[in-house]
């Protein structure tokens, strides 16, 4: 379902060009659980941004569910993000002035789902991630791990086929980290495609497949046995 051919992403800051992605070729099938690993600054988040339709590559092709993404308009990309993709960002990206509940229901608002249904589903996912008692807290009233879980809940609320998780365990203690991983594994069992981004090899081992990138290039792509 994800097909990437010869993708490059170059950032230009003044006269300096940074090649964040170089000649990426990658296919990820439906219901795969892939881990993208690599050292810091290797281009993992950049690759996620491309696959998640958040940014456009400098060159190359990206086909998502048989649609060439670079030919789509801004609003069409928004619709894909809204319906097909759930993001768990490395830096959470929660809206500070909204409560946990309001942050989580946000994707459903843009789908036009009514208030009652939204609140019901948002409460449910927040309970699932163990935040049933923190519904009305704003992000700055929550710990890092709790914010992480709000971000997870928001990614899951619209039940998207593809979930991108950028260092979802980075801010968590071992126990909560295991809980989040169990959650992702369960989603995978239910049929979702999971793309996990991490620099932690132990975490990556829990995926079915490991794609290692270094300096913007894929240096290894193997199945976990």
């Amino acid at each position, binding site marked *: 379902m994800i097909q990437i051919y010869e993708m490059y992403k170059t950032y230009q800051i003044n006269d300096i060009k940074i090649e964040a992605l170089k000649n990426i070729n990658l296919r990820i099938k439906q219901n795969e659980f892939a881990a993208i690993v690599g050292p810091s600054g290797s281009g993992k988040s950049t690759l996620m*941004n491309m696959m*998640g339709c*958040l*940014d*456009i590559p400098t060159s190359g092709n990206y086909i998502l569910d048989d649609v060439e993404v670079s030919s789509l308009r*801004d*609003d069409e990309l*928004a*619709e894909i*993000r*809204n*319906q097909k993709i759930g*993001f768990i*960002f490395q830096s959470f*990206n*929660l*809206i500070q*002035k*909204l409560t946990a509940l*309001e942050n989580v229901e*946000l*994707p459903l*608002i*843009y*789908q*036009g789902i009514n*208030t009652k249904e939204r609140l019901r589903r948002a409460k449910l996912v927040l309970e699932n991630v163990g935040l049933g008692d923190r519904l009305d807290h704003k992000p700055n009233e929550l710990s890092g791990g709790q914010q992480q879980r709000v971000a997870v809940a*928001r990614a899951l609320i*619209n039940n998207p086929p593809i979930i991108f998780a950028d260092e979802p365990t980075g801010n968590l203690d071992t126990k909560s980290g295991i809980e989040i991983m169990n959650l992702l594994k369960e989603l995978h069992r239910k049929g979702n495609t999971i793309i996990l981004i991490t620099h932690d090899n132990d975490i990556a081992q829990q995926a079915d497949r490991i794609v290692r990138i270094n300096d913007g290039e894929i240096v290894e792509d193997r199945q976990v046995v």
Partner: protein
Amino acid sequence: MGFIQAYKMAIKSIRGNKGRSFLTMLGVIIGVASVISAVAFAQGSTKNITDSIQKLGTNLIQINITGRNSNRNMSYEDLKEFAEKNIDIIGAVAPQSSTSAKVKYGTKNMDTTVIGTTPEYERIKNVHVTQGRFILDFDVDYRQNVALVGTAIVREIFQGKDPLGEKIKIKGQIFKVVGVLEERASSATRSDDDQIIIPVTASRMITGTSAIRNFSVEAASAEKVKTAMESLEAFLLKIYKNENTYRVFDQSQMLDTLGEVTGSMMIVLGGIAAISLIVGGIGIMNIMLVSVTERTKEIGIRKAIGAKRKNILTQFMIEAAVVTGIGGILGLLLGFSIIKFIIGGLNIVPAVYSIPWALISFGISLLVGIIFGLFPAYKAARLNPIEALRSE
């Protein structure tokens, strides 16, 4: 996403950030309130000035007999008869024999102006009686020795005593005081307070002549002033045969002055309104630009999870409209309170409530608020989500 939803989201966002919403509102409140109170002050001053000019009477025509005619003079009765025949152009006429004389009450006396006239004078010259009554037809017809006194005379020779019913002596004749004239505060007409009004028939004894040299005529309306003057001139020419023995003049100078004053006050008013609108507008613009620009990251987040440009713009437009709208209403209330309690309380100029200016300032504030709330939101909504997310 429907409009109702966008509206709810905007309200949530306003509530979620009370501090910023309040600051934005404050910009609008101050903008609107300052425009309408500045305009009210300017309008109050204009009204003050134009009212006092108009009070002097713009329909008024004065006839002065300057020369002497061998045969006969125009009497009050002649003029009155003419006025009755030309009722469509002339409203009323009043003779005005004025002479200076010594007035005495008990042991006190003073020099003053004595005006002999008829009941019509009260209306034509816009005279007000605060105590007692004005001259009646009866007083004129039966030559009653009654008098109305100005406040300066009450102060000077009655020294606070109630003058009604008291007897005074004018040039040795005894007159009964039947009324007190209203104080004319305006300094330009100060001498109005230092005068006595008596029936025109009684004044013949004081002046020693029945010839009256001044008449006040009220035209039927301001538009009829010119026609009335022309027919009066024709009438006078028939009696005196010589154009140089009389003068007929209107208050056209006063009308011109009124026009000029009103005109320049309007310019002042417009200037004040424009400046306060610009100042208020810039205030609103700044706070909107800042508050929306600092929300670029929020816009990035919303786009990342599926908001379309239109969703973002609708939300920000409603937010701007609600915040500036509430601010505008509060600004109107504040402005009207300033007019009522401060301008009205100081009582220097009359409190004028101008609905058109209130609407203009409200409308412009709303417009500026929405434009400058929407413009940065539009820019941010055009960024790709990653760029917007990076801004902090």
